[in-house]
């Protein structure tokens, strides 16, 4: 036993040996180091490509970085995200609550599955960009339409993942709970939900990523507001570094949010993964 514990111990031992502690630390963060190197390499290629240049509309990495920092400190990003995050947060909240709820319901009841699942399967397959003009037609160009765009993209994947997660609960754990006379409610709360949580959270992560796509699509296709406005405006006046900085910022925000969600999941729902 204790193979993982032993591995931890030996890793600690390397970092603890005084003189070579720098190399030890370096080894310890090896994966982080490789990731940083991969990103740095990407930026380097970008810089070179920008200097060739491959297109007059393709800024170098350093120009983009300068634009990014300027926009970060002059409040352009703050104002833009204050607007962009509204439909995103509302839409994701609705999708998460409704999607996880419906997903669990579909997983537990065959009737709910027949009733609800086909709608989501079709919605997931539908090209959403094509539906956004329809939303605009019905709900205009306000917050409602943009929120709806987020929900339409995020809800199906969250609901379908929740449904699959619950349907694939380890049957022997369910039997175990029954054999110790667990009630119907205990079975759901103490067995099915924790067992399903990794896939439910995978669905939430995918839903969040889809929500980002939805809100940007909405801001580009319905009316330019927030970060969509920044992108559209800087493109129209040929401020390409600023336009790229806006695009990079949305990628950054999306990545950070997804990582935060993952960290939350491990911390709250699956304590056994914290140690490993």
């Amino acid at each position, binding site marked *: 036993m204790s193979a993982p514990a032993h591995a931890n111990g030996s890793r600690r031992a390397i970092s603890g040996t005084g003189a070579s502690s720098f190399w030890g630390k370096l080894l310890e963060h090896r994966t982080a180091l490789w990731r940083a190197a991969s990103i740095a390499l990407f930026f380097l290629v970008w810089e070179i490509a920008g200097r060739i240049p491959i297109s007059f509309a393709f800024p170098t990495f350093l120009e983009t970085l300068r634009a990014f920092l300027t926009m970060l400190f002059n409040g352009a990003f703050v104002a833009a995200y204050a607007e962009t995050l509204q439909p995103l947060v509302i839409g994701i909240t609705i999708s998460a609550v409704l999607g996880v709820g419906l997903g669990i319901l579909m997983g537990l009841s065959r009737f709910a599955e027949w009733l609800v699942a086909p709608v989501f399967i079709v919605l997931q397959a539908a090209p959403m960009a094509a539906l956004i003009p329809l939303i605009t037609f019905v709900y205009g160009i306000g917050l409602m339409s943009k929120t709806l765009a987020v929900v339409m993209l995020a809800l199906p994947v969250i609901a379908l993942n929740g449904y699959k997660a619950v349907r694939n609960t380890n049957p022997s754990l369910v039997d*175990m709970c029954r054999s110790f006379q667990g009630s119907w409610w205990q079975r759901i709360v*103490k067995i099915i939900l924790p067992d399903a949580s990794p896939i439910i959270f995978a669905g939430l992560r995918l839903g969040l990523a889809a929500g980002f796509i939805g809100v940007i699509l909405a801001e580009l296709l319905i009316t330019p507001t927030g970060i969509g406005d920044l992108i559209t405006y800087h493109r129209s006046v040929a401020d390409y570094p600023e336009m790229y900085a806006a695009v990079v910022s949305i990628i950054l925000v999306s990545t950070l949010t997804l990582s935060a969600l993952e960290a939350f999941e491990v911390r709250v729902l*699956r304590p056994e993964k914290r140690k490993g």
Partner: protein
Amino acid sequence: MRNITAAATTAVETPSPDAAVEVRGICKMYADMEALRSIDLDFPAGKLTTLLGPSGCGKTTLLKIIAGLIPATSGEVRVNGVAVTGPGPERAFVFQDFALMPWATVMRNVAFGLELKGMGKAERQAIARKYIAEVGLSGFEEKYPHELSGGMRQRVGLARAFAVNADVLLLDEPFSAVDEQNRRKFQEDLLRLVDLEKKTFIFVTHSIEEAVYCSDRIVILSRRPGRVAQIIEPEIDRTASPDAIRRDQGYLDTVEEIWQGLKRYVD
């Protein structure tokens, strides 16, 4: 060794008073497949009875019917004289694949049966700690299942079943996912626990050696549809050391006899 197949069939009319579990005319159909055909059995209280048979003979099905996890097509199971309609507090199940919650520590897993009954945290942890010690896992209370070996995981499953203080323990091939060396050690520990806990054990296995080594009584089921083919009581001196038992002539003869009986079911 005593072959009491004939005695068992007459027991249907006169149920022995010391039977903890009585199985009466159990049949089980899965769609068109007949898994069990009119099983009549008594499981004496305080003894370890093994259900042994070739794979697909329905021994696990029978155990799960006794546990109340799956319904029988017809027939009745009585535990302490009361008919079984579902899982109950007088029975506890040990699962082949351990069925431990990977997100819970050893402590929470062992105390889980008590947690479901609504017992307070301090009280249930005190009980769980006692049984964790009894199965030899002291010091591992805060570990997670993935940090334990297969044998240790099944000890957690066993401690969880002991913790609810059921009269009847149902073990579904508890050692099949445990490696050979750990299994031997575990079998020896199980015998010690059987002696210590004074409970009725019903044990499903496909290992003849395991059955003969551990059991007071062995029920051999025939291949599909499962029926009681033979009942054997190995008369082995349990006070001898485990190694002496494994070399005992009575032990070896019993293993051989069961093998001769089962051979025809093997293809």
